[in-house]
């Protein structure tokens, strides 16, 4: 295709991506280097019979004017990145000196908002991803051996947790595990503890969120593995059977190696998706016990009437760096595939 024609074909989509994905990333970076203006203080001296007294008051008018004139705020360099609500280097150094054991040190660091969010995000990603892979494979193998008539309806039902809006899906589960909901009330009866509440304990909240994550993502890995199972080479399977391989051995030595590339694909997609976990924490109203990087950004922007653009920008930049690290293997893989197919074409 001629360069000129190519340009006109690609123009709409490329300009959309540059204007609303690439530039916002730049804008986020610029915002993260700025901080909101402080309030303008006016100092007035009032003299009475017992001497003079200095009082300072906030000049609302001037503050608003200043903020309107320079909505970005004033330049702050990288200071937002290292303040208490982000990387908090000073606080960590302080805790390191003060803490008497590694345990207390980690506990203190965990109380810093950025590290708290990071801890949950990483744990969530690390726990949900393997569960989704293993259970998805198990369900796929199970569905594959179902009679043909049942496969369609089974796949229909299996797709639902993934297709449904994440916010809505997590709300549905949230209502069920509520102290008065069907699961919550049943659990209270089973453990004979009327005060048992999944929302009150941090550990249970984490477990609940991860169970939701597995429920939501399992269909994706199931569908991919199920499609992969349709292409398992029949010859190899028969040869294995003639050699006397048991069902388990056939699964272990024929099916699973065949599915390995798909597993890599699912893992990479899951790592990226789980890293941005957001909606369930909002739905479960779990922010007291579990926050993620996305939720921290959301809260900064939601700061009523007075969004903290600088703070949100700094967290966003660090999230983007995290995504970039996770993405590197995908990029290398696609890069190699692209090179290979280009080499084939020549």
């Amino acid at each position, binding site marked *: 295709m001629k360069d000129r024609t190519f340009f006109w074909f*690609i123009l709409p989509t490329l300009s959309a991506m540059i204007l609303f994905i690439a530039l916002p990333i730049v804008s986020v970076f610029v915002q993260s280097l700025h901080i909101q203006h402080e309030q303008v203080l006016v100092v007035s001296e009032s003299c009475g019979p017992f001497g003079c007294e200095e009082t300072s008051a906030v000049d609302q008018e001037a503050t608003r004017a200043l903020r309107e004139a320079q909505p970005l705020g004033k330049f702050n360099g990288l200071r937002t990145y290292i303040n208490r609500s982000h990387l908090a280097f000073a606080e960590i150094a302080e805790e390191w000196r003060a803490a008497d054991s590694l345990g207390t040190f980690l506990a203190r660091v965990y109380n810093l908002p950025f590290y708290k969010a990071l801890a949950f995000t990483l744990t969530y990603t690390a726990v949900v991803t393997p569960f989704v892979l293993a259970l998805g494979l198990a369900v796929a193998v*199970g569905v594959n051996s179902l009679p043909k008539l049942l496969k369609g309806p089974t796949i229909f039902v299996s*797709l*639902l947790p993934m*297709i449904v809006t994440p916010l809505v899906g997590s709300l549905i589960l949230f209502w069920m595990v509520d102290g008065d909901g069907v699961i919550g009330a049943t659990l209270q009866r089973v453990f004979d503890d009327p005060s048992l509440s999944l929302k009150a304990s941090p550990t249970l909240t984490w477990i609940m969120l991860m169970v939701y994550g597995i429920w939501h993502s399992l269909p*994706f890995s199931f569908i991919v593995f199920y499609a992969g199972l349709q292409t398992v080479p029949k010859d190899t399977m028969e040869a294995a059977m003639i050699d006397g391989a048991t069902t388990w051995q056939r699964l272990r030595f024929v099916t699973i190696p065949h599915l390995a590339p798909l597993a890599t694909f699912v893992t990479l997609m899951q790592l990226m998706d789980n890293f941005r976990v957001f909606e369930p924490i909002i739905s479960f109203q779990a922010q007291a016990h579990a926050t993620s990087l996305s939720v921290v950004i959301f809260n900064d922007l939601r700061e009523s009437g007075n969004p903290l653009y600088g703070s949100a920008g700094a967290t966003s930049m660090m999230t983007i760096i995290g995504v970039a690290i996770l993405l590197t293997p995908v990029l290398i893989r696609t890069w190699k595939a692209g090179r290979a197919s280009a080499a084939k074409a020549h």
Partner: protein
Amino acid sequence: MTTKALSRTTPLTVISFALVAAWLVIAAFPFLWTLWGSFKVQADFFSKADWTNALRGVETLRETGSAFTGQGYYGAWVQEDFWRAVLNTGIVVFFTVIISLTFGTLGGYALARSGKRYAFWILMAALVFRAMPHITLVSGYLLPFFEWNVWGILPTTIVVLVAINQPFTLWMLHSFFLNIPKDMDESAMVDGCTRFQAFRHVIIPVMWPGVITTGLFSFLLAYNDFAVTSMLLSEQNQTMIPAIASFLGSTQVEGNVMFAVAAVVSATAPLFVLVMVFQRQIVSGLTAGAVKG
């Protein structure tokens, strides 16, 4: 003989059947429960004393005189103006899908037919863009949108959703167009068509299966979005998902959780129909990237 041996009942197959059955219950039960419960009153849906109350509707019978009630739906749709959010969602989703697909087919076609180095780079960039968490992008939009006075209106949200949709749409349509033989449009060009005429008369008539599959995923992205719509739309322009989220804040105080339950069921119903009608396309779309890559 092979098929017989393959389908022999072993402990492993029994276990896998049990697992599938358990998964089906876990996947479907929350939806059935909420659908059934949305026609009850709150005292039944959240019944501490006896969970079967929610099935039989004891309190519903006492309060309304019938085992089923549409109170939740009336409250959500009429009292709380949920219909307005539904309408907004309709507008946003419709335009997002149409514009995404128009941009995406043009771009995807060009990328599939180019074979130049820069085409590969654009695809790589799209892959990076696709991985960006939406909320980080939103934090880049807010300030400029406030400054330009375009915050809170539907067109802004549509444009943003179209842009966020592009990386995925491009990749999917790109791989779809690769499967349409090059000879088709190239022979049309030998006959004197321009590139665009070849696209218009030869490619467009055969591209619909791929476009429909891609369109489904664009639809899901726009319909399910919370990060963008909740931050970029003003109160009266809210779409369904942020409306449901804001319901929660207000209704729990008033004890009208059932409004939110009814709204949730209303928002989920179209997705059910979608999966039912387009199950095959959704499955093929999900696996397209995996099986080929």
